């Protein structure tokens, strides 16, 4: 059978992708400052089985919360479903007077962690 493994994106392709927020996310501002994102997460199969064993009303998801600091909030506000990754980096660098390479590394790492948590999805242009 032919290998249908997807070719990894080049840097240029990855930077032209558009990050989009997960619509199921709730945002609220705590008294301590920053921004809290609350998002649904599926229980692991082991905990589902444990729930079934302990009670009848089994919940499939629970809400996990993460708190963003000022820089995270700025990137989050730039993720609007219209800007591509390169534009997010450029705007973030401009906002904080950072070198674009430095902004690129920090923003892409941050977007990757948001993606792994399911807070954003990456749309190919």
């Amino acid at each position, binding site marked *: 059978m032919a290998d249908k493994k997807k070719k990894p994106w080049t840097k240029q392709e990855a*930077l032209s992708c558009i990050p989009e927020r997960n619509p199921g996310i709730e945002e609220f501002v705590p008294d301590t400052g920053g921004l809290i994102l609350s998002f649904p997460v599926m229980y692991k199969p082991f905990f589902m089985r444990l729930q079934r064993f302990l009670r009848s009303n089994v919940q499939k998801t629970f809400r996990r919360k993460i708190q963003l600091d000022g820089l995270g909030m700025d990137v989050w506000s730039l993720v609007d479903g219209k800007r591509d990754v390169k534009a997010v980096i450029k705007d973030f660098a401009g906002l904080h007077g950072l070198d*674009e390479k430095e902004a690129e590394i920090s923003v892409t790492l941050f977007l990757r962690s948001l993606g792994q948590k399911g807070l954003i999805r990456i749309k190919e242009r």
Partner: protein
Amino acid sequence: MLTDNIPLKKAVAWNGAAFKIPDAWEIDSLDLTHVMISENGSPRTEIKWTESSPSIPFEKQFRNFMARSQKLLKIIIHEEPTPPFFLHSNSSFDFFFFSWENASSKGVGTLIFCRHCRRLTLIRFFCLDRFLPASSAHGVLSSFTDHPLTSRVSWQLFGMAFSTPENFRLSDYSLKPGYFSFQFLSQNIHLTVLSWGPALFLLAEKTLVEFAGERLPELTGLAVTGTCDRGNYLEWSFRQGLFKNAGRLPFLSSYSRFTLFRIGHDKQNNRIYGVKIDSPRAFEIDLMKGSILGG
């Protein structure tokens, strides 16, 4: 493309090598003797150098470096004549032009031998058939220098710019988003240049003194304030023993080191910069303060 007349405005200076590149180009990766420059993820130029030993004949050194470079970069090099229009302001440079190719790419390049500092530098450009006048490649080569013309070595990358006395050698560095550190060594004097950013975010909820105390817990005593060309700064000067109260024991006093730490907020570049000098002798700290920090 490399053939159009793009002004080279961005200066890069790293470990002795200094050159100019177009604004759209950026440092992709670097180590102590290597810099890779790219544009939107596509490689544009690669610079690699080595010090040539005076005890080994130049021809042998040259052949070894060429062979090693071909093996390391997985390229085949063909000798090319020097372009007729090419001139360099540094008369101590000898240029050996070449074209290169591998399975996926090809380009041109040059090997530079500096008779002044005996450094051998290989510069190769990607996706280029030949050197053209007024091209970016020509501009990069024309602006290239491999040793400082004054007694200070310039460092310019990722928005940072500073200079160090030429007797200091880079011993370690760290380039992480938000935190850059460069450590230099000359005999037993340590010089560390630090930079944190963005400053407005880092200093939003704390003062510069609190920030300095967090980053360097060993800071003791009161800071003096002053002004330099980057703005106001705070400066600590203290003595550090092998362990707490070691200075009270006379036989351990020779192991103590004198430290000077200066930290400031560079408002123009939105960064916090720090310079730390430590030496076993107090007078060296004063000398360094005068020569590096300007008083």
